[in-house]
């Protein structure tokens, strides 16, 4: 193929991203080296915002973990957000994988209908979906009134909502459709003759699953993992709505810094640190599972 075709095909998307992503992010990085003084922004170059995030100080204890920082809030919220996001991601993948498997191997007809069936609830507003979980788990909600009607409990359970478990359930519900699709795509690509050959050679269903299906589904599964993990670290809407007073996350801090706290440069620094930490974790994760080898194998 012609040598110029590639760059020409890529150019429109690349230019759009350069204008609408690189330029704003550049401005953000610049902003993080400035400081806020009252209503004005001091444009002297300084690392003060970054220093403030890591400046050592007397330890602040949070859930039994010491954070030896003078301003421990970003560090604590980052750890908290990562923990929430990792747990939610694990839950999403565990729930979505069997569904993707079902879709790829059991559904013979109307696959498109199934896919659309799975996506339909996601055409409704995200906020309303979160809100419906409040209706389900709420004090007078579906679970409580159902249990009361059955005579299981006399008083509504008040531990269903406004805690990390509620955040987890809501996040899982919000993201499973996104996770099913990439896993399904990579399962669908598996050459059925491989499975037949293995069956002919006497492999049991479990052995086939373990030795062929699972490894070959990894590109999609890993993609799904990242698709869920990365945005949930910065998500603050769901924890705010169903997490109660424990729902403050690193995203809430960024939002607060840009709005209420009126310290956009500090907000810029916190968000850049957050992005770097996420990127570092993703790289470590991909290296640990041997991503390159896996893709090479799946593509072969």
């Amino acid at each position, binding site marked *: 193929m012609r040598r110029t075709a590639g760059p020409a095909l890529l150019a429109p998307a690349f230019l759009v991203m350069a204008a609408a992503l690189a330029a704003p992010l550049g401005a953000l990085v610049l902003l993080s080296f400035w400081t806020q003084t*009252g209503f004005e922004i001091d444009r002297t170059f300084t690392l003060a915002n970054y220093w403030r995030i890591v400046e050592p100080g007397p330890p602040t204890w949070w859930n039994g973990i010491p954070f030896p920082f003078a301003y421990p*809030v970003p560090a604590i919220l980052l750890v908290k957000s990562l923990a929430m996001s990792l747990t939610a991601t694990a839950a999403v993948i565990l729930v979505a994988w069997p569904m993707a498997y079902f879709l790829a191997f059991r559904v013979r007809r109307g696959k498109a209908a199934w896919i659309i069936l799975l996506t339909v609830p996601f055409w409704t507003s995200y906020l309303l979906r979160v809100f419906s979980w409040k209706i389900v788990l*709420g004090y*007078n909600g579906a679970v409580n009134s159902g249990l009361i009607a059955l005579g299981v409990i006399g008083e509504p359970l008040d531990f269903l909502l406004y805690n990390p478990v509620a955040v987890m359930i809501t996040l899982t519900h919000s993201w499973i459709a996104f996770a099913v699709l990439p896993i399904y795509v990579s399962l669908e690509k598996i050459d059925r003759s491989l499975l037949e050959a293995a069956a002919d050679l006497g492999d049991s269903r479990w052995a086939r699953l373990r030795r062929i299906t699972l490894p070959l589904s990894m590109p999609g599964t890993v993609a799904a993992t990242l698709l869920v993990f990365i945005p949930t670290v910065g998500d603050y809407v769901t924890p*705010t709505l169903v997490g109660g007073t424990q729902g403050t996350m690193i995203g809430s*801090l960024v939002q607060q810094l840009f709005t*209420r*706290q009126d310290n956009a440069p500090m907000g810029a620094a916190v968000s850049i640190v957050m992005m770097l930490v996420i990127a570092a974790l993703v790289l470590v994760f991909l290296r640990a599972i041997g991503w390159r080898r896996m893709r090479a194998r799946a593509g072969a």
Partner: protein
Amino acid sequence: MQRIRFIDRMAQGRMSRREMLASAGAFGVGAILVPVRARASGPLVCLEWAGYDVADYIPAFVEKHGRTPDFAVFGGEEEALAKVRAGFAADVMHPCNYSVSRFVSAGLAREIDTARLSHWPDIFPALKTAEGVLTDGRVVMAPADWGNSSIAYRPDLVDPAFAADPTWGIFFDDAYRGRVSMLDNELLIQIGAMVGGMSYDEAYALSGAALEQAARTWGRKGVEISRFLWTDASEVQQAMASGEIVAAYAWNDLVKNLQAEGIPVAYAVPREGLFTWFCGLTLLNSGRADEALAYDFIDAWLSPETGKLLIEGSGYGHANMKSFEIADPDAVAAMGLRDPVAVMESAILFRTPPDAVQNEHNRVWSDVKALR
């Protein structure tokens, strides 16, 4: 548009290098230049509280111009302030007595020529000269709506001892852990300090080590006790309706709405004091619309018909004295508010400390919540 014009001028070589650098490099230049050139063109843009962004509150404006202005909604003043400071061009904003100074000191507010407001003579005289309305002798906010902030509670579900002698201490009381809800606001720290014996005048201006101390003692405790810190009224209203929480920080409309649903609810006069506030309309200097439109909008808000709607629909008071004459007398009586002067004398009017202190409160409150 701005950008096209810029490129156009550059292409025609009508712009010196110096001019170009100034336009392209300096942040905020566009925001300063544009209003001057483009004023008196676009539609009226109003930054309005979510829920107030409807034709119902400005019948006179809609009648005259055949449409509502373009609304941009906000949920809290600091959010709106950040939006305007980031360059959002709005003509009118709806701040409150305690928050208007933030807009004034950020250099965003303009003086209001009260002679251009037909309803101005009917505004309660005390409100015309109240702090917030007047800044350095100039009117920067036309007062419109007013009401209270106190504890709404379920008399059937709280301890009778609380109903007999209500106290803000309920938000820090282990006996009510997970059964009350405070607003998501740094006010919680100040209220805590007041429960601890401090006056509001000291508490709202707390700063430095004293503020940190109050945040550690009261802020953390309060955040622990509340089932959730509410940010939207529907949430707290439903939680009270179901009995999930038995008391909450609330404005008048919550009590009004719950009563309309037939739910037993009372509005406390806490022993530490009842809070009061009034809000109004402020002209912003970022606006691009014809000034006459902005005045029509403000005047519509000050009309007695708007006041009637607020009194009957939400249980709020209104700045126009005539509102109380045309509103349903039962609604006026039920509201328990008639004269803003009497209310403000018997209650604690919210205030805002200097900008530096307010920013400190914002930061400390964020930190308190983060450490939960």
